[in-house]
């Protein structure tokens, strides 16, 4: 994962590099051509000026010959040779490379040459001129160095610009991102994005505002629906229950009919319980519980054990209390009671007769362990209605409620299978 700016910078820099590399031969070609043209022009001027100056001098032919030989000796780079006739129809222009004639170090120099026939006193002479021109590698090296400097300038400039831009231009984006990270659909905290003058970010903020507002309202409706539906179901369930109570008082009832009514009664109690649990879940999710009460956790555990003692006795389950430290926590008392009861009842229900349950409350960790055979599927365990046992009692919501209560009180509930024991632990 790389930041967006460095992602765009890299191809941009590669492109700049390619352009600059291409520019090196182009610059060289341009500079060299201009230089050669200028030198050619210079050579031509020198040749013409020489012939003109010779012709202007009112001296004899002999003297001219002497002057020309003197010229050839002292004038560097030029040479005048008498021709019997003009055998050069066209001027010769070329580049040659040779060692410096009068220097000790053996360095190849490049020269631009012109061979031209000039006429002095109407006699043809071959005029040769050589002018030093910068070597190819020299030119390329200088252009290359300058290009490299520019490239370094662009890279450092971009680097500095990027850092400043990411600080200023991307600031609204970062703000939005931070707000989103802290947003929780469940707690329904209001989310407010800062206004920005960047079109794209403002568009993003607006879309997010719309999306969140929509989601919040859908979520609310859905939760309200669960709560309302459960609430509405209470009345018909109550009517059914009461009618069954009346039916059971009927003197004409046979034992068979009574048993049917009793089975209906049990099923009805279960549906009432499922309904109540759904309502409880909806209420927890809607944060309808005061979470600021001070709870003596160990006291609630003791109460719960007392209430459930007869059910332990009945299944002949040994209850082992490993530790029960004085523990005071913040939370909701009735929710905590439900959590403890559900954990213990769950253990009682799923422990075979003559089995054992051990509980401990130590260093703010409450754990309930009961003997078992096989590790349970953790993914399904805390899901609503995903009953892992074949027993048909229970609402299928017990562990979901434990999970939801823990979440609402910011506790952490975990399941482990250790030494043939199912261990549920709640970190307070």
């Amino acid at each position, binding site marked *: 994962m790389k930041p967006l700016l460095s992602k765009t910078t890299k191809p941009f820099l590669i492109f700049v590099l390619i352009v600059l590399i291409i520019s090196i031969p182009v610059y060289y070609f341009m500079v060299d051509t201009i230089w050669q043209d200028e030198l050619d022009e210079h050579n031509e001027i020198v040749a013409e000026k020489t012939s003109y100056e010779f012709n202007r001098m009112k001296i004899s032919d002999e003297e001219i010959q002497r002057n020309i030989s003197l010229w050839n000796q002292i004038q560097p780079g030029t040479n005048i040779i008498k021709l019997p006739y003009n055998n050069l129809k066209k001027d010769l222009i070329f580049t040659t490379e040779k060692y410096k004639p009068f220097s000790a170090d053996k360095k190849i120099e490049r020269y631009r040459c012109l061979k031209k026939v000039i006429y002095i006193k109407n006699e043809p002479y071959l005029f040769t001129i050589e002018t030093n021109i910068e070597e190819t590698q020299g030119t390329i090296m200088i252009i290359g160095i300058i290009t490299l400097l520019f490239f370094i300038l662009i890279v450092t400039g971009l680097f500095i610009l990027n850092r400043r831009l990411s600080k200023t231009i991307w600031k609204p984006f970062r703000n939005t991102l931070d707000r989103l990270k802290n947003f929780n659909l469940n707690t329904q905290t209001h989310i407010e994005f800062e206004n920005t003058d960047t079109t794209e970010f403002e568009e993003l903020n607006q879309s997010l505002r719309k999306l969140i507002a929509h989601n919040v309202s859908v979520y609310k409706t859905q939760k309200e629906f669960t709560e309302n539906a459960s609430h509405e179901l209470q009345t018909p369930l109550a009517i059914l229950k*009461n009618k069954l*109570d*009346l039916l*059971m008082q009927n003197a004409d009832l046979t034992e068979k009919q*009574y048993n049917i009514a*009793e089975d209906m009664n049990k099923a009805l*109690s*279960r549906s009432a319980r499922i309904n109540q649990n759904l309502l409880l879940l909806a209420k927890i999710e809607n944060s309808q519980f005061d979470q600021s009460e001070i709870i003596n956790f160990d006291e609630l555990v003791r109460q719960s054990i007392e209430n459930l003692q007869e059910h332990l006795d009945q299944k002949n389950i040994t209850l082992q209390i490993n530790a029960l430290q004085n523990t005071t926590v913040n939370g909701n008392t009735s929710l905590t009671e439900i959590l403890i009861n559900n954990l213990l009842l769950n253990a009682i229900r799923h422990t075979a007769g003559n089995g054992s349950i051990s509980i401990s409350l130590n260093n703010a960790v409450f754990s309930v362990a009961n003997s078992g055979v096989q590790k349970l599927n953790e993914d399904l365990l805390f899901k609503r209605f995903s009953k892992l046992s074949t027993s048909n009692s*229970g*609402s299928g919501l017990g562990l979901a409620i434990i999970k939801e209560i823990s979440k609402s009180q910011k506790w952490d509930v975990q399941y482990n299978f250790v030494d043939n024991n199912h261990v549920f632990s709640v970190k307070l």
Partner: protein
Amino acid sequence: MKILIIEDEVELAKSIAEYLSEENYLCEFASTFSEAMGKIEVFQYDCILLDITLPDGNGLKILEELKKEQKQDGVIIISAKNALDDKIKGLQIGADDYLTKPFHLSELAARIYSVIRRKQFSNTNVVTQNELQIDLLAKTVSVSNEIIALTKKEFDLLVYFIGNKNRVISKSTLAEHLSGDFADMLENHDFVYAHVKNLKKKLYDAGCDHYLKTVYGTGYKWESL
């Protein structure tokens, strides 16, 4: 004994009245807030069953009015809302009991019985049936003036039966009464059988007649003339 049922669900009110009429209770109905206010102003009841979610007002207001007028009617709130706040508030204002829908009629009858007894016999609240005497205030039971030791649950069961004389009470109903919220989470209701058996034995051993009968194999009935 006069009872006012303030309940907007007609079927529910009818069932309650039918069950209670067997006990020689005289039931009157009020299905709206205004109707209820009108009735409590004029008449006096032994017990008022109050649904707090009424179409035209909050039932708690009725309760407040009763207390303001210093009426002695017993009040049991019956609510579809299992909201702890409502329960605490209701009891604070002065309701005698609180019951969440759905409930068993036998449960309601037992509560009404207790409320009325408490209101009317505030000093010596003793129920007598031949040789059996139950002191609801001291929570003691004696047979032929001999006190017998009952556990909390056994005493609770006995009062429940007394409040539902000659009625068939099923095992699952008793289970719900005894273990409250988690009865249906338990695989079997044998613990009810254990408690009832102990109660029967203790009463019989002390020389009490067999008032508590088993009916239809799994149901119970307290017989009394």
